[in-house]
């Protein structure tokens, strides 16, 4: 279905940052030797943190629930290892917040033994399974969106009845530079992802599933096409997308593929679409067919490390262990400048290396002093580049100013910002626009609360 010269994309804005994907591209997904301890924090998803369901000194095995969903928007958390709970403490998460966390001493032999129970599964068509059971299985598996926002999937897949859904988009765009985790997953688990898509199609009772992939991954597009041609996956098609950042943003993807615009303050539900990351769909497949909860995920470790590549990391592994045991350590310890949780555009520099991998970690990026430089921001020269490139059609420079001077009336549109970082990327004077806009969001929320 690749039609040369007819690549889909969103209309306004966008940039073309250097991809740097060659570092980890086509590197097979590898496992990492288990560390001595893992520390699993209970706030890995959007919404309320899970409640701790284990006690100190309790023996636990792989897949046992250690965090119980608390409230409507929340998700269960399961143990990725077998071992003993040693501590329950408050530690820093990769995004800088403090969260309750369970420290487990790993019994690596038992873990390997226990992981085998997820391997052999009888194959049957997803259409034969009950919808309720599938949704329950997804909920029990604690699956959240793996794209980054980590929204609990069982809520996303049960849209309110007054909002009919007609299309599901699988997000395989992976527009963020450096990251190749989704790409590699699509190559290695093509059939599983498509079966997962069939499960979604079944429970949402829809016809059309579209897989959006950027055209810098032609082999992934081909792999999917080959399988779709065999006719065992009805209603699916591939949409080849132009390589442009932020193509993988939910709203940009919907605009590019379906030419529908999600109105300000609304969700994809409102235009009849659900967008799911390919990683999430693979997790759905594993939950339904293997009964396996979301306990590990593919993470790209790239940049200034000896073996950049794609690694299957259990949750709760520290960044330090992932880099040293998995990616062969830093190329030069003294020259490491930043370690980023996520990609370079939307990711966030971590403050210490003992923060752990969570369900929303898509990449660990190490930047050396050569790649990273920052010497403060300059004044706004009113060039308007941020406005030209903003994929949401906002005026980042004005929003940042309004946030800075607490002009609440000028912050009306700030909630539409998807924090993709395009404005900060193109700014010739390196203004920290996204940072101010984030602060603006908090200001607006505070103001709205005090009005009520």
């Amino acid at each position, binding site marked *: 279905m690749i039609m040369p010269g007819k690549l889909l994309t969103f209309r306004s804005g966008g940039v073309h940052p250097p991809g740097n994907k060659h570092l980890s591209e086509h590197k097979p997904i590898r496992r990492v030797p288990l560390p001595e301890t893992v520390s699993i924090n209970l706030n890995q998803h959007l919404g309320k943190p899970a409640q701790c369901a284990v006690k100190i000194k309790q023996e636990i095995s792989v897949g046992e629930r250690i965090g119980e969903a608390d409230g409507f928007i929340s998700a269960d958390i399961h143990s990725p290892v077998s071992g003993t709970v040693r501590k329950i403490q408050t530690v820093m998460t990769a995004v800088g917040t*403090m969260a309750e966390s369970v420290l487990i001493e790993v019994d690596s032999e038992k873990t390997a033994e226990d992981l085998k129970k997820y391997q052999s599964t009888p194959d049957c068509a997803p259409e034969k399974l009950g919808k309720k059971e599938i949704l329950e299985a997804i909920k029990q598996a604690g699956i959240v969106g793996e794209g980054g926002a980590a929204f609990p999937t069982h809520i996303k897949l049960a849209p309110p009845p007054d909002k009919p859904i007609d299309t599901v988009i699988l997000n395989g765009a992976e527009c963020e530079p450096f990251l190749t985790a989704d790409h590699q997953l699509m190559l290695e688990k093509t059939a599983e992802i498509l079966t997962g898509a069939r499960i979604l199609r079944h429970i949402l009772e829809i016809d059309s599933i579209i897989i959006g992939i950027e055209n810098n991954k032609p082999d992934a597009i081909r792999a999917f096409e080959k399988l779709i041609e065999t006719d065992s996956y009805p209603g699916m098609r591939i949409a080849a997308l132009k390589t442009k950042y932020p193509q993988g943003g939910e709203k940009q993807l919907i605009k590019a593929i379906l030419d529908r615009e999600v109105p300000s303050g609304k969700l994809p539900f409102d235009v009849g679409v659900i967008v799911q990351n390919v990683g999430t769909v693979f997790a759905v497949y594993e939950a339904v067919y293997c009964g396996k909860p979301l306990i590990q995920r593919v993470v790209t470790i790239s940049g200034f490390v000896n073996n950049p590549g794609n690694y299957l990391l259990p949750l709760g592994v520290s960044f330090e262990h992932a880099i040293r045991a998995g990616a062969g350590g830093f190329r030069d310890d003294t020259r490491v400048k930043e370690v980023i949780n996520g990609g370079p555009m939307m990711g966030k520099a971590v*403050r210490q290396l003992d923060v752990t991998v969570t369900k929303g970690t898509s990449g660990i990026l190490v930047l050396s002093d050569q790649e990273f430089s920052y010497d403060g*921001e300059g004044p706004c020269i009113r060039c308007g580049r941020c406005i030209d490139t903003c994929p949401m059609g906002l005026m980042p420079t004005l929003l940042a100013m309004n946030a800075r001077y607490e002009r609440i009336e000028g912050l009306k549109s700030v909630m539409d910002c998807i924090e993709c970082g395009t404005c900060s990327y193109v700014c010739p004077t390196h203004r*920290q626009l996204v*940072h*101010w806009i*984030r*602060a603006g969001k*908090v200001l607006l929320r505070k103001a709205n609360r005090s009005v009520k």
Partner: protein
Amino acid sequence: MDVVSITVATMGTVALIAGIILFAASKKFAVIENPLIDEIEELLPGANCGGCGLTGCRAFAEASVNDRTVRLKCPVAQAEIMAKIAEKLGLEALETVRTTARVMCQGGSRSRRESEYLGIQSCFAAVVSNSVDLVCPYGCLGYGDCVRACPFDCIRIVGGVAVVNEEECTSCGICVKACPRNIIEITQYEKRVYVACRSPDKGPEVKQYCSVGCIGCRLCEKACQYDAIDFKPFISRVISENCTECLACVEKCPTHSILFRQVDPEKTGILAGKVYDDVPE
């Protein structure tokens, strides 16, 4: 008739009619305002800081005249001004205690910072994005939100921590609201002993990130003979009412987290004389 006289006559008539209308309107729609309001406004500092909880000095004057009370307290005005206002209103002034804002932290460069914060130099922005480099989760960040907020220009960042010039401080409370860490407090000016730490963490944890934090050892509580230390796990607090400034606790404190602010009469502010050159814009 020539043009000049026509013009004069027309304009004169128009002016006369307009004058009569304006006079009638001014009589009919006159707003009778208590002249006291103007007099009281005259006495007030006129900073319009909002420290009293109203929108400005005019609003304060109106409120105090209309309510016939001085329970509204202007934090900026000195006691004698309040007494004058009370006199005008025919009331007795409430006894007021001079207050000042104080930063309950003296960490700064003595508090451990890990990683390097390259974001916007604003405490609020740093807290919002969870990228604070200070390890202590309670301490002063030193990016100067309070410095920029202070309408009287009496806060400075000294050695990485905000310090209030207590002589100039009018305790309007704007810095209290500006601080995202909530470590600025309005305290009594006369009571000079206070615990400059707000960390309720246990001793070993505090030791890890700050050398001048309260470790909750309770030595001050034991040293105090006047019941002036209020200990809640694991932070001490000086009860100003009971404190006699005997300084027993100040001497006993192993981490020097209890401060005794001394005012040097020769100098204007408590920290006057130091060079304030690291003030953010």
